[in-house]
């Protein structure tokens, strides 16, 4: 042992000095490099981990939002279709109602017209009859009052007929 110590010049002072050197290295590396580096790396790992989780959550939310928006669009389409269908049905019914109303109105107009025509006709007939009677009376008066030749007679008849036609 002594020969080893003397051969390699091992002495406590050098040993302790080297131990102090090593302790200094451990302290300095730990405090100035290892600790802050580990902290930075851990923080980055946590940040990346959190970012990945957030990204996953965002993706899930996006998928859910897409699904929701698709559902809403589909629902809106269905509602729009239904509204269009309802509108068509309503329009059809309103059209039918309007048509029926128009028909009814036209029928009533026609009926009123017919009644009016009938009245006018009756009135005209009555007037014509009255006028014809008057003409006939006049003609008879004329016939009676004067002797008419066959030619005048024929002319009188034609004139009366002509007046009757006008009526």
């Amino acid at each position, binding site marked *: 042992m002594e020969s080893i110590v003397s051969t390699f*010049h091992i002495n406590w002072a050098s040993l302790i000095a080297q131990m102090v050197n090593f302790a200094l290295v451990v302290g300095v590396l730990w405090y100035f490099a290892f600790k802050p580096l580990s902290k930075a790396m851990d923080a980055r790992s946590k940040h990346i981990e959190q970012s990945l989780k957030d990204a996953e959550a965002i993706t899930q939310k996006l998928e859910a939002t897409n699904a929701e928006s698709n559902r809403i669009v589909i629902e809106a389409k269905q509602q729009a279709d239904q509204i269009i269908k309802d509108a068509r049905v309503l329009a059809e019914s309103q059209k039918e109602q309007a048509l029926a109303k128009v028909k009814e109105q036209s029928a009533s107009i026609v009926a009123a017209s017919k009644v009016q025509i009938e009245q006018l006709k009756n009135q005209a007939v009555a007037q014509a009859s009255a006028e014809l009677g008057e003409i006939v009376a006049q003609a008879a008066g004329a016939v009676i009052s004067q002797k008419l030749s066959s030619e005048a007679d024929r002319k009188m008849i034609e004139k009366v007929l002509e007046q009757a036609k006008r009526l």
Partner: protein
Amino acid sequence: MTTASPTADTVNSIEHDSATVSATEQHVSHEATLFAEPIFTIQNFTVTNALLTSWVAVGCIIILSLLIRRKIQTVPRGIQNVAEALLSGATNLADSITGSPEKTARFMPIVFPLFVFILINNWLGLLPGVGTIGFIETHGQESAFVPLFRGGTADLNLTLALAIVTVVLTHIFGVIATGAWSHLNRFVSFNVLLEIPKEIFVKKNFAAILINPIKFFVGLIETVGELAKVASLSFRLFGNIFAGEVLLGTMAALFAYILPTPFMFLEVMVGFIQAMIFAILVLMFLTVLTTEHEHEASPSH
């Protein structure tokens, strides 16, 4: 040409270059000594050339650490990238050895600086000027060249100091992790001796009379193994680095140009590998000593 050794200390030194050129016709020996040469003294404390290199290494590490600390950002750049890659690689390697990230986190503040300190000391020894710049010391008629710097790990004082510190730390960690009694029984198995009566009278296991004393002596062998750890760690590192320096010196003496270059690359590799071996061995010792003792872990034995 070989010169005579000037002092009794250099009887054990390896002479690799003995060029002797002197205007005063004195012999100046260039010898690779097994020990670090004293450069100056501060009161009673002798500063050797290896200690000086070690201080330079500490200075380099402090500067590097401060640079890293100053440049730390969320998005790493430059030196932080290198430091993080190194730390991350070391952590992954340590994880594969300890098998537990918690243990790695506990041991890395010791093992990683150990690796860096040894590596820088190993590589500083390869720099031009280290071992070649110095002064001539004259003792009587003989003169010897004393280099100003010497590879820190080419001095047994450094490797031995590191080995002692790390082995002591493994035991401290062992006591903290498994408890003082369990840790003590790993080496001096009192439990095994105390169990003998129980094994014989309760369990009727008469083989315990033979087996348990053997287990006790195995524990004592483990104690010797702890001393061997210090010796093997320190001498392995010292031997490899010192041999490398001698090899480079010899090659440079044979032919100073080109010839030492491949050996220089070899020594760069050796420096890295030896630092890694030392650190990994310490990590393994830490892992083993912080794992529950087999006898304690399996009460059926």
